[in-house]
């Protein structure tokens, strides 16, 4: 595992080199003050201090609307897959980790999803260790951490004067060697400083008890808490759409004249129509079943099925729920 160092002052040079290879998305502050992954020629130095982005980067791998097929005169054709490289710089470790969950469904599943696979293949993720966790964060309880590089190709840790860069995958190794001339070797001091910073961030994160969640949720399937908790649910898709691991989708056809396309778009299990049969029967008829499904899917079914929690503790669903629901409350109530 290669470990390197780059001074903050050389970051622009690094981004410049990446831009020669493909599209580069890096954190930038918008007019309203929000920091988002933005593809812009950066005049200002890259933003290194920020809370996590409002939107998770999952749309880079599973676009919200994606053409699966095109139609012409009754014939279906595969759209051409993108082949240019994309670099995502500054993804937080929780969001990088979410990619491992998505990989379980879209890469390891039989058959793999060719569209996801291609975007995953052409995209390099350079994560930036988190120094500013929020009160809604609980990554450390779901197997992650502010300095966890799993899911990323390179993990960067911001130091006083440098970034420590650690290759996580062969793709990351290749990337670091391709810009070796910009990098210095990591020193013991740098590694220690990184550890200290990550540790400091870790200490800010309040734990949530999710050990053995699958078993506890199995036991809690008929708990009255589902009814109580779901009373406030408005049935919108905010939690799912902002969630870095939620991946359910709909497929619809669009046609005009003899041309058209088959599109997949994000969908959400909180919507009543999600499971509605053509016959009018609905297996999950009320918010109770739908809210339970969302929690069960993340903390039990995914564990039973794919051996992985489908929650990375980013807290987006908690911060953005219009009814201020907090899934940690339910997990606590169920002792899950």
């Amino acid at each position, binding site marked *: 595992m290669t470990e390197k160092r780059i001074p903050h002052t050389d970051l622009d040079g690094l981004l410049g080199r990446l831009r020669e290879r493909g599209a580069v998305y890096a954190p930038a502050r918008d007019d309203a003050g929000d920091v988002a992954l933005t593809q812009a020629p950066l005049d200002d130095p890259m933003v290194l201090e920020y809370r996590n982005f409002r939107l998770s980067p999952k749309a880079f791998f599973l676009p919200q609307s994606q053409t*699966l*097929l095109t*139609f012409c005169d*009754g*014939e*279906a054709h*595969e759209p051409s897959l993108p082949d240019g490289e994309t670099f995502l710089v500054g993804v937080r470790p929780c969001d990088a980790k979410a990619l491992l969950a998505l990989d379980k*469904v*879209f890469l390891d*599943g*039989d*058959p*793999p*999803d*060719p569209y996801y696979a291609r975007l995953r293949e052409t995209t390099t993720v350079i994560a930036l260790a988190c120094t500013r966790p929020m009160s809604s964060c609980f990554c450390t309880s779901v197997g992650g951490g502010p300095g966890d590089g799993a899911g990323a190709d390179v993990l960067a840790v911001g130091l006083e004067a440098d970034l420590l860069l650690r290759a996580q995958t062969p793709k990351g190794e290749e990337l670091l060697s391709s810009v070796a001339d910009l990098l210095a070797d990591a020193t013991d001091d740098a590694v220690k400083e990184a550890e200290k910073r990550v540790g400091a961030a870790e200490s800010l994160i309040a734990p949530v008890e999710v050990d053995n969640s699958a078993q506890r949720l199995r036991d809690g*399937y008929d708990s009255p808490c589902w009814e109580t908790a779901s009373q406030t649910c408005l049935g919108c898709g905010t939690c799912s759409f902002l969630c870095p691991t939620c*991946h*359910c*989708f*709909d*497929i*619809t*056809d*669009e*046609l005009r004249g003899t041309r*058209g396309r*088959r599109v*997949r778009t994000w*969908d959400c*299990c909180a919507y009543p129509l*999600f*499971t*509605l*049969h*053509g*016959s009018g*029967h609905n*297996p*999950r008829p009320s918010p109770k*079943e739908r809210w339970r*499904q969302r929690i*069960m*899917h993340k903390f*039990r*079914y*995914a564990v*039973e*099925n794919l051996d992985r929690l489908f929650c990375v503790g980013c807290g987006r669903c908690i911060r953005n729920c219009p009814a201020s629901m907090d899934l940690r409350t339910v997990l606590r109530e169920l002792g899950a």
Partner: protein
Amino acid sequence: MARNPYLPYPARIDEVIVENEARDIKTFRLVFEDPKSAVEFDHLPGQFAELSLPGMGEAPFGIASSPTETDYLLFTIKRVGLFTTEIHSVEAGTAIGVRGPMGRPFPWDTMAGKNLLIIGGGFAFTTLRAAIKYILDPANRSRFGSILVIYGARTPGELMYKDELTEWQARDGIDVHLTVDHADEHWTQHEGVVTSLLGALKPSADNTLVLVCGPPIMIRFTLVSLATLGFSEDAIILSLEMRMKCGIGKCGRCNIGSKYVCKDGPVFTYQELRTLPTEY
């Protein structure tokens, strides 16, 4: 490179057969445009496929034909929703896309050497027809014991595959009993719900597996009757219907608990179903 799982095999609707009096159930006979597709499309009764009309959408349907019927695929479709209304309006000759075969078939290995009790209700008889055709094929018949079929519909006019039913009733090697909820003046066979006929026939549970497909209400009562007759939960095999989109375990729509109906099903034993949430 592996075939894009979202890309359907091009096929053509060869023939459209109206199955019932209400004219809302039709059987579509499909022929692949490329004979190679027919080879790749290697299915077993119990499996389903996604059919699509370009621009009109896609929907999953149980395959009504047996792999022993090599020249075509059959799908029997009731007009209920968006896609089914579209497909009911097309004529023979229309291009159609087929993705599949998908899902787990009936457990043919377990069924070998067993007596089979096949219980169907109404429109859900489609994959059971595929199973019967498969069993009755001379190459397969000797692999199974006795075959008892119980098939019911609301009225005589609602029974599907009428010609075949008549043929099966006339031939050896299979015992077919029909029933209708409401008889008309020409009906000479059993009248009453499926469970009443099941109660009258009292099939033995000994070395017997049951395949059950039908509307939820029929299934509920049938399971009770089967328990009374001494059938164990792992001897009862059911097929579920769920709303589906991708058919390949990605879109998350057909989950029942940790199972995907599209991949882990649609065929489950009653024993397996008992471990799942009742969200179907």
